[in-house]
């Protein structure tokens, strides 16, 4: 009875509905059962390696991966490349080199001096600065992808929905801005990025299927790892900590009851 008034208020709030969706609101995201979701989730190693290939061959043309160091590619909880493979990947990239002995930072053609990457280097960006990135992309800035899945509501589902959400017909009356593309999962529905993936755009080394959904699933898994390289550590440690805390709390409870037995 004493809870009637507050309960009534809560009930009223629960029964109320947010106002109807407006033009430009994000469509409900596609949902995929990611292998890394849930308390015992882990990264699918094959997906990580395929995803890296998709990033390298498609996305890295416009999107940087600034915070990821090459050496993490061979570390535990990641794509699981061998140390030799990781070094080869690093060496395949050209990284900005410091001034040479003459003090030049550019060669005679005016291009910046570069050297092959080493494990300690991070992925070099496709553009030297924000202005160059915008100039090459119609004024839009392709975001860095290192933490993209933590930086968007919906995380992996959002990135997956965006990159597989192209090709749909916009609703009647909605005008797509010049130079942009219709994508109902993007706020405002006008996204600057053209459809990034097509079927078999990437040929996976192990012959795995490469339809758009497969490529998208792979790269989303890879980007989930770049966003959280220690996810598997976290899940593993979490299990140990939970078991420990439950046992400890049980013992603390028994101690508490033992002490209080004589109090009443």
């Amino acid at each position: 009875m004493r809870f009637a008034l507050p309960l009534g208020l809560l009930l009223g709030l629960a029964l109320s509905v947010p106002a109807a969706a407006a033009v430009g609101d994000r469509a409900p995201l596609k949902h995929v059962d990611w292998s890394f979701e849930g308390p015992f989730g882990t990264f699918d190693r094959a997906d990580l390696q395929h995803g890296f290939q998709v990033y390298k061959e498609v996305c890295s043309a416009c999107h940087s991966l600034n915070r990821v160091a090459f050496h993490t590619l061979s570390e535990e909880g990641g794509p699981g490349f061998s140390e030799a493979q990781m070094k080869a990947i690093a060496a395949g990239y050209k990284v900005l080199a410091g001034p040479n002995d003459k003090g030049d930072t550019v060669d005679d053609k005016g291009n910046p001096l570069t050297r092959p990457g080493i494990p300690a280097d991070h992925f070099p960006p496709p553009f030297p600065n924000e202005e160059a990135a915008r100039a090459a992309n119609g004024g839009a800035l392709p975001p860095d992808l290192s933490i993209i899945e933590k930086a968007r509501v919906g995380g992996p589902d959002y990135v997956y929905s965006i990159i597989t959400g192209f090709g749909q017909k916009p609703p009647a009356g909605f005008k797509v801005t010049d130079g942009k593309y219709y994508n109902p999962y993007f706020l405002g529905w006008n996204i600057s990025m053209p459809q990034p993936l097509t079927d078999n755009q990437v040929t996976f080394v192990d012959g795995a299927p490469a339809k758009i959904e497969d490529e998208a699933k792979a790269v989303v898994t890879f980007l989930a790892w770049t966003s959280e390289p220690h996810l598997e550590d976290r899940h593993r440690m979490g299990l140990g900590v939970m078991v420990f805390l439950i046992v400890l709390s049980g013992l603390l409870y028994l101690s508490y009851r033992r002490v209080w037995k004589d109090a009443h």
Partner: protein
Amino acid sequence: MSGQSTYVPQTGFTRWLDSRLPIVRFAHDTMLTFPTPRNLNFWYAFGAILTFCLGVQIVTGIVLAMHYVPNENMAFDSVENIMRDVNYGWLLRYVHANGASMFFLAVYVHMFRGLYYGSYKAPREILWILGVLIYLLMVITAFMGYVLPWGQMSFWAATVITNLFSSLDQISGGLKVGTHVATWLWGGFAVGDPTLNRFFSLHYLLPFVIAAVVGLHIWALHVPGNNNPLGIDVKGPQDSLPFHPYYTTKDAFYVGLFAILFAVLVFYAPEFVGNPDNNIPANPLVTPADIVPEWYLLPFYAMLRSIPQKLIGVIVLGGAILTLAFIPWLDTSRVRSNRFRPLMKQFFWVFVVDCLVLGYCGSQSVDASLHLGGIEVSLVWIARIGTAYYYAFFWVLMPVIGLIETPKPLPDSIAKSVLGPAE
């Protein structure tokens, strides 16, 4: 209740120490033998839980500070370094960030407990006011701490809140006091590197100030002794138990349960209470679609946004926290605990729901609205009603209900209530 010390040093060394610095005696009297009411329930464990939280935040904060760089060009990267490269850095960061949320969860339970059982009433007025001071210091510390990662939300929340001070211009005419205060806080013309650096310095300092005020808070508690769910005074030793082992073991168990909840957040939902926009580096030229503070500040945010006039909004916001300090004198009831106050109890629970509703309003965008049985109600109006009730609860209901309500009869003593009639 402070009584005679029963500590007797057993060894030569402890006798020698006791006559020079009675620190063991002090620990014995305050943490071992201290007489505590025998009927304290679950809600009374949150003092110990809060001490645990403060310890966790200070320890994780100090080690994080070994890696964090408070410079606008390096702050975000230094946090990424902690998350990716520092050994167990991801764990320390997630414990510290989620620890702040757990700290506020515990402090709100602790405050609601105090309100429900009348723990703010004489002779515990100073205890309550020290608690309000601790809460205010926590809010300031958390606000500054949130700025440190220098994400989009860090930057823009700092901008919004520090801009509030410029509303003082309205009452200072040509002097432009508000702008000067804001400039002084910023160390520049907007939130920037100088702001970040000083926030880091103060964020490191304030937890130790909090620890000192907590010391005063516990001292002020120990003078009259703890309140209890019945709200009646301890009348003799039959009403109380020594703090150790009764409440050390009981509190330890509840701290254990609290740690389980904490661990679920840290290990299985570490970004749940956070905002994804804070994983985007701060950009002074791009404002996020919705600027939202962390959940524990949402009710106050709702109050602020419900008032269109900036200065009034700031006064309402500040007044909401300041009001808490007056509670010991606003409540006119002779009965402490809401267990025996059937009318006040209902308004208390409405108040709890009110805080949750305000929190919800704060979390939504300014132009959001709800469909309540066919009518579209804007959240701003719900927040205004919520703010009105918040103020009315303290300034109208507390004085009035105490005078008009008929409390239930109080039990004779704690012991009788707990143990039943004497054999």
